[in-house]
């Protein structure tokens, strides 16, 4: 097959399994803890409509069509001429929207802000995609939905199960070979996870009876069941998943509480102060910074405060284009519900299927389309947070104010160490009329970076623009689904011939940028031309809409791939940084090389998969995302080796002038470098804020500081 054509490698997709990756989205948590990712999920409601110009301007009509599409898909037929992909898309969108019956009645969406529905979940009118009992649809020992995973079928071919994603149900004929060739993995050597969570391994729940009595009096829902507690004891770092598969955490929350509104949170924090408990906020659970891990030596009762039941849109202000939303809402629900009114936030971290609004705020999240909508700090207008000192919020909802240092910036990135974000006012935008994907092939990575730099300079970056390196490009190729017809494969061959032979691109050098344009139709087309013109100056060749689209789609399924790797002795992670433009190329090269070298030194027997993409552009620099995986057969303590290598890679990033984190956050994983990153005085400032706000360390997850 032809790499560049078909599949998506390009895009974002990238690669690896890790969750962190921007892509996918799972987890996170709102918890304040870390979140994963930035860019977005492909499958938002909007992108779901079938025709290329996929967005209709009238929300109702759109909704209708999507539903129709879903129904059609469910019936099993798509228009024959449209490729299966379109069909999948519709299926997914149908899924994401939920069945009509489960959707909340419109009327309910405008509640009076501070009113809290009484505690019981039975009364919750707003259904979230993710149930309160997460285990009902999510994996307990891996990424994402139970029904979606990579498997090797009877013919030994890789397949992605389920129906949720564009790739679902498809066979990926070259993935196996890629795993063998690039990672030295073999189907013969399999290592499977424990099949069930053994509740007898789980540390017992130790909760003071007086607190329980007080808690019951508030009528706030809670649970001490082992499964609920384990589910909230971790994020999605490699070592956490490894523990789930083969061991057990030393310390997990003793109790999980589900406040239903801001006032519930106030009550819980008061109780925690009264009984001297430790609260760890939990949103979507997609942390990749060890932010959700319970400190092993925490002697107090640990309360996991799950915000997932605070998920209402309290009001929409169409005059100011803002919406006031409870912080526990997860990304896909937020966009779907706003979409019903014709709006969106445009914030699409790769984890948006699972991560929560509060988590975004608590970790300084970044979204795939930040070029249009901005990162979370640009989107937020007002934050309400409950701290042991009381509630912190501003007195007005204004676009900007000069009243000393912005208190929002103490909250954003506080990673659950100061309090719980309960309500957020966020900017909204009308859903764009038109969306278009695109892609550009460059002869090599350097040219690609130069092009992105120029686009950033001219400030004409599309909603999203990502540049994947050659290894990731080839990896994308490995995820290409079976080609349906001889004609397609012939066409692929032709394209490959054109690029490599006619244009003289070296298949082992070339790389691809994926693009996503948004706006009104006219402007998108104009914008597209401008970008392609710039690309041409750097030797870039337009490589089609389909490639671009596939790239973004893949971002979402790739997190699932790590779980497959884990079954075959392959472990991997992703990590990110931000870096000035002039150092992008050097940093990418050096970090990848450092990984390869460290693996060799640590006795890793197969060359690792080490790849990167430039995933966001800014005026002064870029965000770079790395994937890294290796085969650990023959190594007795793979997690330790892995951690040493990740540490070395981070050292390398810092030595190359990169940042400690662009959007994953610090958590406990990267704490060791905080002082170096923000200076002694800087760290002291943060500590004194913590000291004032939470002198008894009620929010004791020990992130950041």
């Amino acid at each position, binding site marked *: 097959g032809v790499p560049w054509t078909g599949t998506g490698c390009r895009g974002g997709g990238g690669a690896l399994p890790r969750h962190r990756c921007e892509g996918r989205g799972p987890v996170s948590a709102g918890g304040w803890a870390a979140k994963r990712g930035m860019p977005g999920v492909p499958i938002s409601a909007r992108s779901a409509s079938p025709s290329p110009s996929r967005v209709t301007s009238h929300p109702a009509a759109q909704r209708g069509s999507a539903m129709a599409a879903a129904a059609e898909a469910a019936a099993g037929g798509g228009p024959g001429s449209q490729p299966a992909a379109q069909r999948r898309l519709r299926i997914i969108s149908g899924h994401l929207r939920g069945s009509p019956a489960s959707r909340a009645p419109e009327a309910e969406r405008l509640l009076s802000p501070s009113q809290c529905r009484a505690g019981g979940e039975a009364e919750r009118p707003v259904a979230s995609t993710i149930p309160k009992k997460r285990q009902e649809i999510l994996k307990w020992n891996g990424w994402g939905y139970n029904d979606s995973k990579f498997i090797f079928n009877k013919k030994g071919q890789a397949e992605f199960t389920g129906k949720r994603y564009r790739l679902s149900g498809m066979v990926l004929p070259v993935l196996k070979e890629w795993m063998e060739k690039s990672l030295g993995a073999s189907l013969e050597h399999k290592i499977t996870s424990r099949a069930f969570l053994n509740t007898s391994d789980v540390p017992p729940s130790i909760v003071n009876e007086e607190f329980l009595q007080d808690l019951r009096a508030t009528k706030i829902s809670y649970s001490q069941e082992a499964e609920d507690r384990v589910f909230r004891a971790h994020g999605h770092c490699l070592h956490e998943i490894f523990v789930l598969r083969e061991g057990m955490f030393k310390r997990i929350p003793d109790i999980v509480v589900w406040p239903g509104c801001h006032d519930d949170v106030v009550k819980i924090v008061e109780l925690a102060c009264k009984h001297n408990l430790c609260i760890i906020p939990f949103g979507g659970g997609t942390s990749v910074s060890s932010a959700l891990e319970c400190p092993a030596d925490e002697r107090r009762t640990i309360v996991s405060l799950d915000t997932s039941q605070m998920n209402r849109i309290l009001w929409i202000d169409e005059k100011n284009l803002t919406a006031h939303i409870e912080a526990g809402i997860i990304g896909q629900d937020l966009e779907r519900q706003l979409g019903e009114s014709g709006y969106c936030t445009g914030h699409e971290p790769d984890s948006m299927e699972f991560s929560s609004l509060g988590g975004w705020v608590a970790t300084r999240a970044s979204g795939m389309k930040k070029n249009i909508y901005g990162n979370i700090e640009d989107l937020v207008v007002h934050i309400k947070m409950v701290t042991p000192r009381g509630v912190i919020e501003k007195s007005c909802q204004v676009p900007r104010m000069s009243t000393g240092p912005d208190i929002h910036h103490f909250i954003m990135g506080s990673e659950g160490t100061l309090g719980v974000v309960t309500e957020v006012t966020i900017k909204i935008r009308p859903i764009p009329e038109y969306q278009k994907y695109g892609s550009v092939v460059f002869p090599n990575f350097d040219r690609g970076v130069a092009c992105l730099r120029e686009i950033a300079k001219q400030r004409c970056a599309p909603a999203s623009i990502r540049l994947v390196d050659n290894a990731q490009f080839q990896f994308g190729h490995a995820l290409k689904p079976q080609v349906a017809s001889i004609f397609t494969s012939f066409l692929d061959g032709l394209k490959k011939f054109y690029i490599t032979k006619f244009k003289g691109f070296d298949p082992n050098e070339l790389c691809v940028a994926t693009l996503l344009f948004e706006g009104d139709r006219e402007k998108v087309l104009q914008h597209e031309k401008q970008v392609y013109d710039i690309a041409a100056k750097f030797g870039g060749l337009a490589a089609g809409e389909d490639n671009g689209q596939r790239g973004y789609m893949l971002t979402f399924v790739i997190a699932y791939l790590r779980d497959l790797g884990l079954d075959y002795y392959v472990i991997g992670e992703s990590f990110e940084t931000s870096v000035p433009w002039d*150092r992008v190329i*050097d940093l990418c*090269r*050096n970090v990848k090389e450092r990984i390869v070298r460290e693996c060799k030194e640590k006795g890793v027997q197969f060359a690792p998969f080490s790849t990167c993409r430039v995933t966001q552009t800014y005026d002064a620099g870029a965000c770079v995302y790395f994937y890294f995986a290796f085969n650990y057969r023959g190594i007795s303590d793979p997690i330790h080796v892995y951690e040493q290598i990740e540490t070395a890679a981070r050292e390398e990033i810092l*030595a190359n*002038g990169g940042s400690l984190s662009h959007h994953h956050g610090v958590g406990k994983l990267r704490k060791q470098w905080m002082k*170096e990153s923000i200076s002694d005085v800087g760290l002291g400032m943060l500590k004194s804020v913590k000291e004032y706000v939470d002198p008894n360390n009620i929010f004791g997850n020990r992130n950041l500081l």
Partner: protein
Amino acid sequence: MKCYTPVIYKGLSACKPSAIKNSVLQSEQVQYVIKQLSKEMGESTDIIQEEAIEILDEMGHNLHIGAIRFFAFSLSKIFKRIFQRVCVNEEGIQKLQQAIQEHPVVLLPSHRSYIDFLMLSYLLYTHDLALPVIAAGMDFLGMKIVGELLRRSGAFFMRRTFGGNRLYWAVFAEYVKTMLRNGYAPIEFFLEGTRSRTAKTLTPKFGLLSIVMEPFFKREVFDTYLVPISISYERILEESLYAYELLGVPKPKESTSGLLKARKILSDNFGSIHVYFGQPVSLRTLASGRINRCPYNLVPRHLPQRLSEEIQEFVTDVAYKMELLQIENMVLSPWVLIASVLLQNLPAIDFELLVEKTLWLKGLTQAFGGFLEWPDNLCANKAVTSSLALHSNIVSLVNGQVVLNDVGMEDGATEELVFKQALSILMCGAYRNQLLNVFVRPSLVAVALQMTQSFRKEEIYSCFNFLRDIFSDEFIFFPGIALKDFEEGCFLLTKCDVIQVTPQEILVTERGNSVAVFLAALFRPFMEGYQIISRYLSKETKEAFTEKQFILGIRNFAFQLLEIGSTQCYEVLSSDLQKNALATFVRLDVVKKMKTTNGFTYTINKEALSKTAEMFDSQIPIRKLVTARL
């Protein structure tokens, strides 16, 4: 015809020398300096740009395969004629070959002769390795044709001093870095800066080294390999030339006609050459944990930046480390041992005795880890005889006695006896000096033992420390590890049963006494030389003097002493020793160095001088020691 297809750096995109020049000129670094200068001097950037182009043209190499072939051809003829053989460590070549593909490579050969870089390029060529571009002094440029030929074979030329010229510095540094960064070719230069006239390794120069390290500090390259290369000559081509130079007969300017005159050496025999390619050293490994990354992250990388103290210290350490590696791999020939024995037994020594002592010294050298190349297939007599034959210009065998020749000037001018004597001793000394590099630590312990006449370890260490300090311009010591050097010296002596070390004391064994005496005598010329110089300084009446005046003065002073026979230390006539001593005194604040409009002048601090002189006369002051660790 041989097909030359070298392995190349993995990231290399082929480019011509002219393209490199162009990219240097257009680089942000050079453009920045041009703009700065234009602002400061009020000249247009075009004019300064022109200047930069001139500098580049003057400096730039023009690596050209035709010239290489020409050189390879003629060099192979010449080398075959004057050298018996050239030995290369093959595994070193293989490692180098590997290294060239992985990361940019910097070749750091020792510098004893003009032949060094010709020989190196020739060897690399014959081994199908990428030819280096070589930083050479501008002196060569003066040689017509040859200068151009050298240029075409990859040499680029640097002015000897250009510290003050910012444009020159910027262009030069960028030129070197550009070649390094894109892996165009290995960079080669001499850490010692110039040819060592005494065969002792010279203290390193840091300018070029810091330039080639900078791309790594700024992470423009992942790593850089430093390859120490030791080239040792059984007989140095320029041996007599050096001796003259050291005695103050000016060095002839490099000229093509001079080279032609040198043709007569073609009929001579210069023995064999050993080229040892050391293990490539990863700069990244050296730097690991040592460099604070912050300074490089906070300033755009194209801005010229003063090296932080931390970096300077690191560069210094690396330079010394590389030189120590060169020394470690330097091959010692039998003649080195013979010369050492001979110089302690002037004016003549019985041949049999010489052989016996040489054999004894051979054992000692091997015990000290010297890299000795001894013809094992020959009996000792024959080995010594053939060495004597090779160096028949310096020594002769007369009636079973080995004596130094009177070396006269070729034109037969009558020389004072002292001068003649000095010439042959300096020539001979240059070979003995090769041994000193290896012997310096145990020997200084032996000298300290002798000076202190004490058993107390503290006292001996204190004296050792003083000597190490005094001679740190003379010999190569890694900065700041006096105690380790002392322990190493003691260890080697213990190993050879010369001393016994107890927690508090150091005792010379009965058997070891003769060894200790020999070791101390080995360094006697330096001890005495420095003593004479300090005596001279204490008599110096002038308020301030220049280096030239100092050298003339000391030379006259020493001549007198030698004539009246109150000293036998001919080596004090060596300008190398004199300059080193001056630098030492400046370092010890005995002499003050001041910058004036035309160079430097020196003034003496009499008080400090008398203190130092006292110490030399073995009055070791009671100094508080860091004894806790001893």
